[in-house]
């Protein structure tokens, strides 16, 4: 018996390859639907930090802003659903047309939105704990990766599906940890890219970069928040792909597809030898 486990390194390798195989057009569409949410979240956080203790005096403003964030959240879920479907089609070798990727069952999207809203509320409630955030992030990734299995509207089915795919937990935690590091690296890279941009602009005669140097420094709170938003948009496609690959691997162990692929790989290796 082959003891095949969904190894973290293999999942990460496959997810990177899967994103490129799916096509960067779908990743760009995902980014387009994610950007309004991230920008509004940044605006909300920046305004909150600016007002500080006095935030309670601006209740109406924050409620309106929060409503816009929630509406942008709904748009981002639509983008995630389309991207995950495109990933699934590419993963099963069905490539498919653009129309196929856009043809998502309404029950699946509605269930995904419902589960994501619950998870987002949990994220907010546990936002001041250290353990809560990665746990909720893992649940969020699994909700996206399993959403297509919701073939009828149900209040319990999305969470049953998430629960069915939480084992083995090791690779899930390792993937979440890897993407936390990837997020930090993406932030550093973005910071470096803007720094290089300013440095190059400084060489152009007549361009005064003094203002921009101050704006694009780590002392500027808004800039740091925007770097975080940008990093999350960059990492998101790979995070979703890693979850899709993980769910597929767990599923393939249930029906023996992994063994079939393994035999096929051995045959290919023999032929090559």
């Amino acid at each position, binding site marked *: 018996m082959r003891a095949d486990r969904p190894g973290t390194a293999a999942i990460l390798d496959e997810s990177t390859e899967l994103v490129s195989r799916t096509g960067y057009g779908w990743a760009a569409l995902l980014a387009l639907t994610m950007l309004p949410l991230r920008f509004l979240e940044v605006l*909300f*956080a920046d305004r*909150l*930090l600016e*007002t*500080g*203790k006095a*935030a*309670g005096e601006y*209740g109406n403003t*924050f*409620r309106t802003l*929060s*409503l816009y*964030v*929630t509406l942008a*959240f*709904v748009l981002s879920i639509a983008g995630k659903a389309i991207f995950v479907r495109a990933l*699934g*089609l590419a*993963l*099963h070798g*069905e490539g498919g047309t653009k129309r196929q990727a856009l043809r998502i069952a309404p*029950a699946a999207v*509605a*269930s995904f*939105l*419902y589960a994501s*809203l*619950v998870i*987002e*509320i949990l994220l*907010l*409630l546990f*936002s*001041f704990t250290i353990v809560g955030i990665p746990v909720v992030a893992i649940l969020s990734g699994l909700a996206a990766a399993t959403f*297509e*299995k919701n*073939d*009828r*509207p*149900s*209040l319990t089915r999305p969470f049953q599906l998430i629960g*069915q795919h939480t084992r083995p937990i090791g690779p899930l935690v390792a993937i979440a940890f890897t993407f936390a590091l990837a997020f930090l690296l993406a932030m550093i890279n973005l910071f470096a890219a803007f720094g290089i941009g300013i440095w190059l602009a400084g060489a152009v005669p007549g361009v005064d970069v003094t203002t921009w140097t101050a704006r694009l420094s780590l002392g500027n709170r808004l800039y740091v928040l925007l770097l975080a938003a940008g990093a999350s948009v960059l990492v998101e496609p790979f995070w979703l792909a890693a979850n899709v690959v993980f769910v597929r691997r767990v*599923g393939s162990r*249930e*029906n*023996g*597809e992994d*063994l*079939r692929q393994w035999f096929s790989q051995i045959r290919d290796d023999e032929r090559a030898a």
Partner: protein
Amino acid sequence: MRCGNVICQECATAWEGIHYCVGCLANRRVEEKHPSSIGSWLALLIAVAGLGFLLTMTRVLVGAFLVSPIP
């Protein structure tokens, strides 16, 4: 596999990337004939609307709580 049972590859049918056994396919056919009830759709939509409102309010409350130590 939708039902979660373990069956061999030959017995599973992949459709739109999801594996189905004979039983699941039969259920799917029944569901196609008898689409989801209006009640379950209504419950889901009410839950989504309610959770959307709850999320909007929770964000404001948690945000205000987190920044409360900031002068």
